[in-house]
């Protein structure tokens, strides 16, 4: 029940984020959606994900507000609204159709416990010595995945550093001044 209230609130917040005229209001609406998602994780009994979602949401909000607060960006809504609306409705209909046919085949939530997960739940603590099973999975059984995830983060930080570095911008500015 709480989950459905949260989901409806999240859909409402997302619509507000799209339709708001002011950029700062949409950023705050996106933040509300994120915090509702954090509560939804808590309702579904996933405290690890809830903590991570909460802190990442706060950091994203700070960065977004810091980036948007001093600028009055014009909203570009005009243009091909008819084509955009029709294509969006078509894609949503196709997605819902395939999601319905695919989700019908899935077993019910948490029942039966899948064979791989069963082994993690029963023997995770004795095999790794960690009480927190989420940590046991991401840092022991599936540590290779975590390595890939860390590589993705590393590459993104390198990319941001390369784009925002000072040297390249200085050269461009000097060229603009000279010409």
């Amino acid at each position, binding site marked *: 029940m709480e989950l459905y209230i949260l989901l409806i609130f999240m859909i409402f917040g997302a619509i507000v984020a799209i339709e708001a005229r002011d950029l700062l209001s949409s950023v705050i609406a996106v933040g509300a959606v994120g915090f509702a998602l954090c509560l939804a994780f808590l309702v579904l009994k996933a405290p690890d994900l809830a903590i991570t979602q909460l802190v990442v949401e706060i*950091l994203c909000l700070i*960065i977004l507000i810091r980036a948007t607060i001093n600028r009055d960006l014009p909203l570009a809504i005009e243009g091909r609204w008819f084509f955009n609306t029709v294509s969006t409705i078509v894609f949503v209909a196709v997605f819902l159709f395939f999601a319905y046919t695919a989700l019908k085949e899935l077993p019910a939530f948490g029942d039966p416990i899948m064979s791989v997960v069963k082994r993690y739940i029963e023997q995770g603590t004795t095999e*790794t010595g960690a009480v927190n099973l*989420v940590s046991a999975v991401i840092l022991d059984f599936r540590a290779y995945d975590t390595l890939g995830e860390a590589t993705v983060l590393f590459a993104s930080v390198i990319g941001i550093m390369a784009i925002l570095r000072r040297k390249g*911008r200085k050269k461009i500015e000097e060229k603009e001044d000279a010409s």
Partner: protein
Amino acid sequence: MRHNPDAGMSIIVKTVTRLTVGLILLFGIYIVLHGHISPGGGFAGGVIIALSFVHLMLAFGKDVASRKLSKNIASNLEAVGALMFLLIAVAGFFGGSFFVNILEKGTPFKLFSAGTMLLNNVAISLKVGVGLFAIFLALVILEGSKKKK
């Protein structure tokens, strides 16, 4: 009310920040070190550590925060974290193959248990926390240099 972002915020915010920022950093370190016992772990703890530095920068301006942890040191520390994670992975070859937990398992519910998991958490937190702070610092410096023009 517009204020100069380089100079930081008012004295009320500065005083409260001086009291709380250490606690936030300590809580991040707690979350990291207890990642294998309680909910949390390297990623969440690293983001909390980054948030403590972001808090410092929002309250005191970017010069004070850069003096604590400059952008070059931040990017170097991030590379150290990534290399540490990779070294732990390669060290698993001593036990057989990639990512084998070579250290003692220990007793559950103790801080020093679960073998390499604690070191993994520290490496990930170093990488995530310092990397995110470096991104934030780079964005703020970009904003500042735009305004000067």
